[in-house]
C-alpha cells in the first residue's frame, strides 16, 4: 500500500511542478502591498478600457458646468467670484501672465481704454476689445453672440457646481481626468511595448550571434546612450512636426530601447551555450527557433519587468512632452495638457484641475512602481 501511494504520487508531483510564472504569481499573492498596488493598477486599466470603448467619459467635452464651476463641497460661486463676470459664457478670462513681455504695454493700453471710456471720448463708434485694440469686426461678433445667446436659452442648463469642478470651458473635471488617463496610460503602454520589442530583438541578435553583429549593436547602443534621453526625445519631436498620439508613441519607443537591450543581450550571451540550446541545435533547430522558441521563454521575465519600468517612465515623459506642447494635439485631453491649462488657472485660484490630474497620475505611478518592484522580486527571488 505504501509503495502504491508513492508510485501514484510521483507522476502527480511531476505534473504539478509549477513554472516560473505560476511560482512568481504565488509569491506575488502573498505580498499584500503588491496585491493592493495591482488592484489600483487594474482599476485604472478597467477605466481605460471602458473609456476607450466609449462607455465612460464619451462626452467629456460637453460643457455641462458653468466656466470654472467649483467642486460641490465649496458651494456655488457667482460669476464675479469665479472671475468670469461680463464674459461670454464660452470665454474665460485670460489671467495676467507674469512672464508676458508685453504685460506692461497691455496694462497701459487697458488704462487708456478705461480712461477714454470714462471721458466719453472713445475711439469713435468702434468698441475696444479686451486687449484695448480697435476691433473692426466687433459689430458682427456682437450679432453672432446674441444669436448664440438665443440658442443657449434652449440649451440645457449648466450646473453651478460639479462634484470635482469644471475647467475654463465648463468640462466636467472627473470625466476629463478619465479621458486624460486613457491617453497618457495608452501612450505609456504602447511606447513601452514598442521599446521592449525593439530592445529584446536587438539584444537577442547581438547576444546570440556575437562577433560583428554584437559590435554593430553595441556601437548603436553607445550612440543612443551618449545623447541624454530627454534631449534625444526633444530633437526627434522637433523633426516630426506632425503632432499626434502615434507620433509620441514612436518618439518614446524608438528612443527608449537601450535599457532593455543591455539586459537582454547579457542574458542571451549567458544562455546561448547552455545544454538545452545545444540540444536544440543537435536536433536541427534554426537560429531563429533557438533564439525565440527556446531561449526567449527563459529570459522573457526580464523583458516583462523592463516593460513595466518603461511604462512608468514613458507616462512621465508623455506628461512633460504634452505639457510643453510637443505631445498630444490640441483638443485631446492628457495629464500633460491638463497640467498645462492648470498652470494658468492656479493664478486665478482654480486649483481643482491641477489637483485632479496630479493625484490621478501620482496614484497610478505609485501603484505601478510598487507593483513593478514586487514583480521583479517575485520573478527573480535571487535578487532579494
Amino acid at each position, binding site marked *: 500500500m505504501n509503495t502504491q501511494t508513492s508510485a501514484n504520487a510521483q507522476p502527480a508531483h511531476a505534473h504539478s511542478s509549477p513554472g516560473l510564472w505560476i511560482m512568481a504569481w504565488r509569491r506575488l499573492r502573498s505580498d499584500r502591498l503588491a496585491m493592493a498596488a495591482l488592484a489600483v493598477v487594474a482599476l485604472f486599466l478597467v477605466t481605460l478600457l471602458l473609456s476607450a470603448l466609449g462607455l465612460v467619459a464619451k462626452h467629456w467635452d460637453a460643457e455641462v458646468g458653468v466656466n470654472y464651476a467649483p467642486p460641490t463641497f465649496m458651494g456655488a460661486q457667482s460669476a464675479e467670484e469665479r472671475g468670469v463676470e461680463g464674459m461670454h459664457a464660452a470665454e474665460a478670462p485670460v489671467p495676467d501672465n507674469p512672464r508676458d513681455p508685453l504685460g506692461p504695454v497691455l496694462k497701459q493700453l487697458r488704462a487708456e481704454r478705461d480712461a477714454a471710456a470714462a471721458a466719453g471720448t472713445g475711439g469713435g463708434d468702434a468698441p475696444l476689445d479686451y486687449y484695448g485694440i480697435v476691433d473692426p469686426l466687433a459689430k458682427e461678433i456682437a450679432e453672432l453672440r446674441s444669436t448664440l445667446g438665443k440658442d443657449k436659452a434652449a440649451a440645457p442648463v449648466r450646473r453651478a457646481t460639479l462634484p470635482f469642478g469644471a475647467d475654463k470651458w465648463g468640462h466636467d473635471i472627473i470625466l476629463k481626468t478619465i479621458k486624460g488617463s486613457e491617453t497618457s496610460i495608452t501612450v505609456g503602454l504602447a511606447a513601452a511595448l514598442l521599446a521592449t520589442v525593439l530592445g529584446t530583438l536587438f539584444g537577442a541578435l547581438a547576444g546570440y550571434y556575437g562577433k560583428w553583429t554584437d559590435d554593430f549593436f553595441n556601437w548603436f547602443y553607445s550612440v543612443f546612450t551618449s*545623447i541624454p534621453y530627454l534631449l*534625444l526625445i526633444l530633437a526627434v519631436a*522637433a*523633426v516630426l512636426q506632425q503632432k499626434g498620439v502615434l507620433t509620441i508613441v514612436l518618439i518614446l519607443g524608438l528612443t527608449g530601447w537601450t535599457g532593455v537591450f543591455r539586459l537582454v543581450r547579457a542574458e542571451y550571451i549567458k544562455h546561448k551555450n547552455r545544454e538545452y540550446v545545444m540540444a536544440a541545435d543537435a536536433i536541427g533547430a534554426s537560429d531563429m527557433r533557438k533564439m525565440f522558441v527556446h531561449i526567449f521563454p527563459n529570459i522573457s521575465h526580464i523583458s516583462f519587468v523592463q516593460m513595466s519600468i518603461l511604462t512608468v517612465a514613458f507616462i512621465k515623459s508623455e506628461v512633460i512632452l504634452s*505639457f510643453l506642447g510637443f505631445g498630444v494635439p490640441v483638443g485631446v485631453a492628457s495629464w500633460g495638457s491638463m*497640467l498645462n491649462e492648470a498652470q494658468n488657472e492656479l493664478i486665478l485660484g482654480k486649483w481643482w484641475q491641477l489637483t485632479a490630474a496630479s493625484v490621478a497620475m501620482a496614484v497610478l505611478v505609485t501603484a505601478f512602481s510598487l507593483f513593478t518592484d514586487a514583480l521583479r522580486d517575485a520573478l527573480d527571488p535571487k535578487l532579494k
Partner: protein
Amino acid sequence: MAAYILRRLWQMLPTLLGVVVLVFLLFNWVGGDPAYILAGKMSNPAQIANIRKQLGIDESYWVQLWIFVKQIVTMDFGASWSTGETISHVLSTRLGPSLTVLVPLTILETLISIGLALGVAYVRGSLTDRMVMIACTVGMSISILVYIIVFQYVLAYKFGWFPVQGWGDSFSENLFHYALLPILIGLTVSIAPSLRLFRTFFLDEISQDYVRTARAKGLSEPRILWVHVLRNAAIPVVTYVMSNLPALLIGAFLIERFFSIPGIGREIILAVERSDFPVIKAITVYVAAATMLFNLLADLLYKAIDPRVQLK
C-alpha cells in the same frame, strides 16, 4: 595614464561619428526640406531655391554631411535661424546661467542624499527606513511639473519668499536671489531617486565583514559610516553622479523654462518650438561629446578612489 586617455579618446571617435550621422539623418533626411520651414507660409520657388543654396542643401547628402562635420570641428554652425545670433555665441552665453543653478544643485543633492542614505541604511528595516522609502516612492511618482507649478505658486507668488522668476546680470544676485527656488525644486525632485539608489549601495557594504571588524576595533559609528562604508561604496556613487551630469544639464530645462533662466535647457525648448534646427543640432552633438568625456572622467576617478582598479 596618458596612453590610456589617448586610447579612450580614440575609441570615442566611432561613437561620436555615429551621433553625427544620427543627428544628420534626423534633421537633413527625416526632417524634410528645412527651406520650407525657413521661408514660412509665404514662399515662392525662387526664395526656396535661394535658401537651399544658402544652406548648402542643394548639394548631395555626402557634401551636406561633410559641411556638418566641418561645422562641428570648427565650432562654427553659422547663425540661428530665428534670431540670427551665431550658434557659438548662443552656447557660450547660455552655459553660465545653467551652471549657476546646476553646480550648487549637484553638490547639495549629492551631499544630502549621501547623508540621508547613510542614516537610512544604518537603521535599515526599521519603521523610519520603511517610511522614508515609501515617502521616496510617492515623491518620485509626482510629476516634476507639479512640484514646479505648486512651489512657484505657493512659495513665490503667494508667500513672496522668492522671486517668481527672472535673471539678473550679477553672478551673486543670480545665485543668492534668483537661483534659490530653482535649486530648492531641483533638490526636492532629485533627492528621492538618489536616496533610494545610494541606500542600496550602502546596504551592500554595511553587512560586510570589514564593518564588523571596524566595530570590534571600537571605532565610532559615524567614523565607520562616513569613512569605511562611504569609501567602499564610492565607486557606484561616483558612477551615478557622473553619468547624471550631462542629463542634468538638459533635465533642468523645465525649471529654466518656468523661471525664465536663460540657460541651455530653455534654449533647447525655444529651439524646438521655433524649429531652429542648427541650435538643436549643435547642442545635441556637443552634449553627446560631453557625456563621453564625463564617462572617461568617471573611469579616471575610479582609479583615484580605488587603487586596485586597473585602467586597461
